[in-house]
């Protein structure tokens, strides 16, 4: 199958005074053409840092220590700043969590949309406006002609996120990275936005990397899921497979902790303890301190490999 994006052994470090913290630890991933991949994990698992590092948006004190990112066969991780600018917002678009923080409050929607197109192509003003209107219609903004001259504060949260999606579509990207796109929104609005993203990925043949902490959302939208814990991928597999037959004890714990998996009035299944901070990740398997299966072998680091279930799992205890 056609590989759209391949990440090989990516490491991202943050250097603070004399200590170096590894936020993304030896991550390898790939996204096929028009495939939807979910990256799931709790806060601090490194999923956002991974998303940012794909388009090299890691700022100091963070840096990509090693590893490569390939976009359609080109090694974009070695690109210069100027070359990278041609990728960002053009071939790879990113959607962020908070729609109010992402839009510039002192520019109209039209200005912000035109800016994006003009940064990547030179065309007449009329053509630019035609593209803006077309994309606004795609995200179901009513009467887009009027809306172009309005400011972000004149839109509701759900509408703002639609506009951000429209902006991300302007240059017909082949990949969209959506970092918690619905976390700031209400459930009914979240459902609308997720439907929209799914529909657009299918009609526009775009790849999607959906970064979220919400397993239920990810299971509805994506075809494959990678679960991150303390900077590493602990399990990766087809969505259906991973949800119905999780292998890694952490994935099992996460799924079991969902209220819908508990018996009514009974206790929820909880994972003991908390995810360690980056400075305190234990030697060997990073999950072993919270794991009920942990044994001596877990003192050595497990590798992510395909197990009998068909998923890739980083655990010594899974056959």
């Amino acid at each position, binding site marked *: 199958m056609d590989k759209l994006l391949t990440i090989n052994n990516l490491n991202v470090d943050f250097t603070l005074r004399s200590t170096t913290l590894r936020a993304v630890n030896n991550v390898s991933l790939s996204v096929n053409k028009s495939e939807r991949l979910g990256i799931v994990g709790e806060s601090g698992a490194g999923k956002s840092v991974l998303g940012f590092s794909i388009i090299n948006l890691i700022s100091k004190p963070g840096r990509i220590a090693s590893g490569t990112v390939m976009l359609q066969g080109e090694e974009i991780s070695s690109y210069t700043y100027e070359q990278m600018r041609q990728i960002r917002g053009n071939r790879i678009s990113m959607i962020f969590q908070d729609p109010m923080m992402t839009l510039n409050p002192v520019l109209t929607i039209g200005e912000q949309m035109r800016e994006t197109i003009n940064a990547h192509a030179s065309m007449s003003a009329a053509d630019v406006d035609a593209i803006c209107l077309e994309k606004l219609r795609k995200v179901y903004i009513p009467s887009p002609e009027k809306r172009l001259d309005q400011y972000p504060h004149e839109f509701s949260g759900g509408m703002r996120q639609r506009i951000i999606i429209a902006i991300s579509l302007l240059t017909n990207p082949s990949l969209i990275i959506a970092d918690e796109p619905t976390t700031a929104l209400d*459930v009914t609005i*979240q459902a609308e936005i997720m*439907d929209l993203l799914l529909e657009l990925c299918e009609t526009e043949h775009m790849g999607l990397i959906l970064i979220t902490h919400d397993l*239920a959302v990810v*299971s509805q939208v994506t075809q494959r899921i990678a679960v991150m814990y303390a900077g590493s991928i602990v399990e990766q597999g087809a969505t259906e497979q991973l949800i119905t037959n999780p292998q890694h004890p952490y994935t099992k714990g996460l799924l079991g902790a*969902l*209220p*819908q998996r508990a018996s009514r009035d009974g206790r*929820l299944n909880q994972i003991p303890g908390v*995810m360690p901070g980056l400075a305190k990740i234990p030697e060997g398997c990073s999950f072993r301190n919270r794991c009920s299966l942990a044994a001596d072998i877990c003192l050595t680091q497990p590798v992510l490999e395909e197990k009998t279930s068909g998923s890739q799992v980083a655990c010594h205890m899974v056959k």
Partner: protein
Amino acid sequence: MDPLVLVSIRNLVKRFDITGGWLDQFRFSGGKISKERTVVRAVNGVSIDVAQGETVSVVGESGCGKSTLARTVMGLYPAEEGEVYYKNTRIDNLSEAQRQPFRARMQMVFQDPYASLNPRMTLGEILREPIRFHQPKLDKGAVAEKVALVMEQVGIDPDWHTRYPHELSGGQRQRISIARALTVEPEFIVADEPIAALDVSIQAQILNLMMDLQEQNNLTYLFISHDLSVVEHISKRVAVMYLGSMCELAQAEELFQRPRHPYTQALLSAIPKLGKAASHEKLTGDVPSPINLPPGCVFHTRCRHANDRCRLEIPQLLTVEGGTQVACHGVEEGRL
């Protein structure tokens, strides 16, 4: 009143005047200057009875007035209209001094454990403060004993009393918030989105803790949440709010199996479910502003079943089969 009812909320109304300064009250229109006020109608006539030992949840989207309801019940906001009773004593019109004994019996847990703990106080100081305030005669040793007891109850090592909140994780901080509510041995706890700021695996820990504490201390909860899947698990009864009004109040099981109000139906179908393809009912449009409430049923602007009556007449709560109370003309007329 039913003797088992601990807290009774009757037709509670809360409005916020956001007009601002004196000059902002003047409007110029049609050649005339008029004086008017801008009022947010946050809670419009909500009634709920909470029985001893039960958990009643209030759910709704942001801006529906659920937190305002909680704060008004606690007396943190004065109510405009309506009454709040605590074991048959009316408490919403009491003076500060008269109210104080009730404040010890009703406690609150807030959403954000980062904002609700004073960063300059140690855990011990945070937990001692409410005891010192409500029971000033207690000697030092007894206070320390009590603090150690509640810390143990919430699963925090009592030796940590010298630590500061920044040394704790989000889940541990929320445990301290719960412990602080427990120090004065309340009967009634209002929990305003206690797990919304926490990670999934930590949410489960806190919910389990809250359920255990309810059993041990015979607590009654008013649980505010936007997350229906959490609510289904812990509550006995659920109230659904929309734009300051209550749409539906039902036994939890009944509500999840047979939602009656079109808004409850939409809200339930919008919950993402594991592995199941999305098949939810779409709501069109956004929530109207609570400053200009729509006339008639507040939900009619987004409701597929709305007719002329819904646009004009405010629906009253109606008890239907299964004990569910629902405010909808469509249900009343048998259309839905």
